[in-house]
């Protein structure tokens, strides 16, 4: 217990680490808020710059950026009706009408307090449940990890994309990218075409920066000329009576956020929409109809998406399965620092786990401070024209990619992924599953082969494993339900069955 507290306090007692968390949170708020910059983009670029740092320092910065970024999206949602991040879509629905009525300051104040509240709930859940889940996860077999990987990729692909097929395609493409290079089990080359550049594989950070940085910058080119709208902001500290009034709603939304965040493949954006929907149904007498600026509709999604941050860390740290695109990028960071996120992380490196919990808590406190101050500076920075932002993103992406191995070839890869990613985004493919697939692909490959070897290469035995063990059975059923509900298989099967019934 005392040891745990000591680990928790690492981030709190070192001034340099406190400074890094504060800087991370501060920049995160702006990155999340400036339309065109995203947390995923920032984290991918940051990882390439910080991988030579001490792991604690890198994590302190990334924890701050993650928290600040998820929150920052709400500010532009309220002020400009542009959700800075997908997790702020619901916030825009209620926040912008509030701002138009001249209550922007109060709306920002309320979202800040509720975001921080949600954040604490998520962190608490992480601290309480991760050790339990981690112990439980020690019982997981190779096949269970294979199943978790597939479920995670498919969930990200189907919940956010245009169609199941596009999600599956993107995920499989990612897995394929992850396969390039020497096979870790037999040292045989895969897709190397005799080139030494490909033997080491395609660096996934190059893929991340390409898909989230350059591709996004190219998408942003379409909205180059959209002018910014200015809002008047006055009182920003929310009324205590308001905070008290929405306490239970925020608590419930945080619960939803934590659980959704903890599911592999679902993150803050879905958590926010679900919590918004829940608030809509559970609020009997809103002061105004939903969609026209109700505070309930503002509180719920904001509490939920920040709670999802803590939640998303649970599967990432205990199972090694990232919850969403940002945690997929962070998992990449952990790998780069030589760490193995998974059930053994808590056993082998408990100090790291508790350090993350401590840093997240600290980031949340800084969020409260920065969230309630500096609004004047904020409105200035957000008006930064995209004509300046887009070239900057590209330069940072190029330098970031180069920094990984000082290899210009990586930069060419990054650019290729950027252009392909632009077309994929344009035609309704999600790029999140590609990254998830790239990260999880090698893990799934080795787990598949281990499970197959355990079944003595007998396919029947291999398949039997998926249903003969309670944990595997639950995961298999979850996967089957997902496949049936997301594809046209089930309606087709049903119509065939009813036809048969009718004819008999």
């Amino acid at each position: 217990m005392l040891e745990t507290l000591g680990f928790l306090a690492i981030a709190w007692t070192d001034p340099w680490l406190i400074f890094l968390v504060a800087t991370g949170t501060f920049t995160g708020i702006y990155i999340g808020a400036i339309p065109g910059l995203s947390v995923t983009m920032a984290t991918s670029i940051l990882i390439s710059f910080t991988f030579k740092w001490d792991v604690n320092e890198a994590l302190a910065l990334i924890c701050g950026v993650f928290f600040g970024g998820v929150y920052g999206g709400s500010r532009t949602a309220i002020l400009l009706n542009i959700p800075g991040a997908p997790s702020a879509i619901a916030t825009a629905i209620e926040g912008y009408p509030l701002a138009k009525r001249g209550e922007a300051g109060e709306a920002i104040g309320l979202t800040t307090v509720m975001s921080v509240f949600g954040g604490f709930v998520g962190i608490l859940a992480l601290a309480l449940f991760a050790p339990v889940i981690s112990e439980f996860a020690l019982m997981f077999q190779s096949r269970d990890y294979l199943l978790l990987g597939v479920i995670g990729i498919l969930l990200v692909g189907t919940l956010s994309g245009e169609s199941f097929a596009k999600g599956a395609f993107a995920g499989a493409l990612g897995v394929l990218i992850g396969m390039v290079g020497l096979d870790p089990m037999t040292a045989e080359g895969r897709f190397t075409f005799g080139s030494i550049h490909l033997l080491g594989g395609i660096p996934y950070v190059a893929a991340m920066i390409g898909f989230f940085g350059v591709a996004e910058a190219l998408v942003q080119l379409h909205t180059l000329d959209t002018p910014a709208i200015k809002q008047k902001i006055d009182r920003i500290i929310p009324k205590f009576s308001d905070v008290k009034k929405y306490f239970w709603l925020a608590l419930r939304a945080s619960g939803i956020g934590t659980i959704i965040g903890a599911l592999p493949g679902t993150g803050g954006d879905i958590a926010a929409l679900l919590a918004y929907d829940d608030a809509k149904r559970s609020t009997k007498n809103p002061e105004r109809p939903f969609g026209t600026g109700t505070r309930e509709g503002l509180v719920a999604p904001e509490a939920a998406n920040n709670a999802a941050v803590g939640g998303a860390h649970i599967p990432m740290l205990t199972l090694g399965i990232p919850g969403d695109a940002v945690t997929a990028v962070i998992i990449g960071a952990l790998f780069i620092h030589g760490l193995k996120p998974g059930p053994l992380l808590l056993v082998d490196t408990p100090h790291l786990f508790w350090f993350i919990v401590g840093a997240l808590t600290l980031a949340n406190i800084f969020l409260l401070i920065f969230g309630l101050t500096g609004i004047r500076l904020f409105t200035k920075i957000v008006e930064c024209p995209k004509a300046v932002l887009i070239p900057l993103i590209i330069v940072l992406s190029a330098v970031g990619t180069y920094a990984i191995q000082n290899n210009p070839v990586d930069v060419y890869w990054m650019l290729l992924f950027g252009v392909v990613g632009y077309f994929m985004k344009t035609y309704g493919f999600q790029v999140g599953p590609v990254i998830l697939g790239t990260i999880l692909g090698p893990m799934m490959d080795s787990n598949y082969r281990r499970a197959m070897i355990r079944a003595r290469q007998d396919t029947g035995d291999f398949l039997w494993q998926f249903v003969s063990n309670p944990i595997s059975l639950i995961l298999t059923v979850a996967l089957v339900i997902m496949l049936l509900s997301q594809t046209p298989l089930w309606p087709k099967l049903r119509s065939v069955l009813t036809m048969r019934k009718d004819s008999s």
Partner: protein
Amino acid sequence: MTNTSAGRRPGELFFVLVMLVFSVGAFWQAYAISGFSGKTTPGVFPMLASGVMVISGLVILVNVARMPAPAADAPSFFADILTLRHIVLIGFVVGYVLVMPSLGFVISSALFLYCAFQFLWRKNPVLMLGLTAVTLAIIYLVFREVFQVVLPQGTLLQGYF
């Protein structure tokens, strides 16, 4: 670009077709790794992945082909998806990453930033020059001094930048 209706976007069919051809090629290459010689060979998972790509690619192709074609008066591929702005900017970026190894980070970035700012913003060239200098100075200080990133030095001007 912002088309969310059921209609097909310009160039969509072609893109999906290219992706499908790529998937088939990837499957063929995956097969070439170890064929069907065993269930735990290095080629099995790549074949599974590319197989999923081929199947889902076919489904997407059928779905896209079934959509109504873009209307005759709808903006074309080059007006809506790959605009002149995109082509020029991508051209700048390609040039940027190609000259970076020889010119080094500072000069190539300065050239790129200036061209891109000028092209996208179209303001007073002196102002753009100033903007380039300021942003580049910030990037250089932050990344060279704070993050201690090794920036490309450039073979042509070795030692100067």
